[in-house]
């Protein structure tokens, strides 16, 4: 078990140039749990995650890691505690899987301290856990989308942080690979106690995998709590601007959102009157 880290935002306002994207937002990430941030497109959820990872400096307010402002801590020290898998990382041409994952050790190394057995062990463990050890010598650009995403997660694992932020880790993956990645992150959380914070698009998968769900709407925190409490027809209407019916997901006993589009409302679902 790792030491539990606290990550909170204290009245954070973040924006690009003249546009405010996240406004006066306060939230506390529960340590050692899986938190998922959901919301409509452009609601500010990715921006919020980037601010938490110190990639964007807040205009006002602060992101606090272990009670201290993240902006005031040395960035290499933060990198030993807090990791991030961005939406579109770039793999250098022709790099081998093992070499890419090894770059995750950067914050633990220095110019005069060469590769150690601790570094080697961390990389091996990361490759094993993400099940890409067999691919270690293959060039990353030859891998499939699902394999590549596991390699990037391995790099983030090699960084050995207690907190891991992920920006839509399942985009571009088919449903089976989405589940595979989310199961892997759950394993990581259960086995290592890593605090996981991710932005997800799919509300139903978010409800399945989250311990704590944060719903963001218009740059503000709409509601948060256990998925069963947060995912209601009213919340879905207010956050996504969509009508829905909520049923129980029989597989995981979590809420399942059934969206109601214009063509599929229950009133029109007569057997002989299909969509024309």
């Amino acid at each position, binding site marked *: 078990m790792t030491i539990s880290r606290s990550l909170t935002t204290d009245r954070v306002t973040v924006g690009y*140039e003249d546009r405010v994207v996240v406004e006066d937002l306060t939230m506390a990430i529960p340590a050692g749990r899986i938190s998922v941030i959901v919301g409509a497109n452009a609601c500010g959820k990715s921006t919020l995650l980037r601010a938490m990872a110190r990639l964007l400096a807040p205009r006002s307010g602060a992101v606090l890691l272990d009670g201290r402002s993240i902006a005031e801590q040395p960035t290499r020290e933060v990198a030993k505690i807090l990791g991030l898998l961005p939406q579109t990382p770039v793999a250098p041409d022709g790099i081998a899987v093992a070499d890419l994952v090894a*770059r995750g050790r950067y914050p633990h190394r220095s110019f005069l301290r060469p590769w150690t057995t601790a570094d080697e062990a961390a990389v091996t463990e990361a490759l094993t856990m993400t099940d890409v050890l067999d691919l270690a010598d293959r060039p990353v650009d030859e891998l499939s989308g699902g394999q590549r995403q596991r390699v990037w997660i391995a790099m983030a694992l090699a960084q050995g942080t207690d907190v891991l932020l992920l920006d839509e880790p399942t985009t571009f993956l088919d449903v089976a690979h989405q589940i595979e990645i989310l199961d892997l992150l759950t394993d990581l959380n259960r086995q290592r106690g890593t605090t996981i914070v991710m932005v997800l698009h799919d509300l139903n998968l978010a409800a399945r995998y989250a311990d704590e769900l944060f719903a963001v709407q218009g740059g503000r925190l709409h509601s948060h709590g256990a998925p069963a409490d947060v995912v209601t027809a009213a919340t879905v209407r207010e956050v996504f601007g969509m009508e829905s019916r909520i049923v129980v997901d029989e597989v995981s006993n979590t809420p399942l959102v059934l969206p109601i589009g214009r063509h599929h409302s229950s009133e029109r679902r007569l057997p002989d009157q299909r969509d024309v």
Partner: protein
Amino acid sequence: MTALAAGRSARTRRRILVTAILAALVIALFLLTLVLGNRVYGLPEVLGVIAGQDVSGASFTVGRLRLPRAIIATLIGVALGLAGTLFQTMLRNPLASPDILGVGYGSSAAAIVAIGFFGAQGATVAVVAVVAGMAVALLLYALSWRQGVQGARLVLIGIAIGAVLVAVIQWVLTRIEVYKAAEALRWLSGSLGSALWGDVPPLAISLLVLVPAAAVLARRLGVLQLGDDTAAALGVRPHRTRLLLLVVAVGLVAVATAAAGPVAFVAFLSGPIAGRLLPGTALLLPAALVGAVLVLAADLVGGNLLFTTFPVGVVTGAVGAPYLLWLIARSNRTGGRL
């Protein structure tokens, strides 16, 4: 030994092998530069001169003329190879080499103005070229800045700045006296013809500072390659690091340009060639050696093997231009991604 270590040591072996071959090639071409010329000297005589013996005839031709030329060719090759690779890697774009981006043109334009209007020579031209190269690079960086610097925007703005500077060079050439224009043109084509011992110390001392600086920054560069967000998450400040890398890279281009004029396309070609030889590894050292091979080989070909002598920059230009065309043609096929 674990499977992981086995795979890595196989890659390391390949890297050492390729690097050693490149180094051997540099030494061979270096010696060939000393041997070949209007009068061919044997290897024993050449080695005698290097060892400091007095060999009649060879001591002057080899010791005074060919040796500084070979040393300068090697050093500017190293400088340009490193600089080009630093640029291309940190901007993640093979087109983003200093000779395409107008950084070299900045040095050239300033040097031409200094030669043509102020009658500057030698060290003054060198200093002016270095300062102007830095200034153009900073201008380029400032103009490309919009929530950070992105490769494709920087390439386009760099090409535009280069076009303006070429116009400046053309204008100056039409204005200055003929004999100065001839000198300016010789300088502009990238030539080692006038290389003397006096040119060696400033170049060597600059490289003694800049090459270690590049080596120190190499690991950060490797992280920056993974994208700005990943780099920041790993504890590397992308913008600050890029600015440091830019200063080192421009310094390398500028001192090389100051020593021999703009030797076309060496910066542009070295990194991609090294990347072909050693895919997916840190390229700085192999690219530096490839740069030295290119300049030495081009100077040998231009000086000895063709029907008439050509300045080194003409030969590298003739090799580099087709590669640039191929790269642009390929980027058309890949949907215009620069």
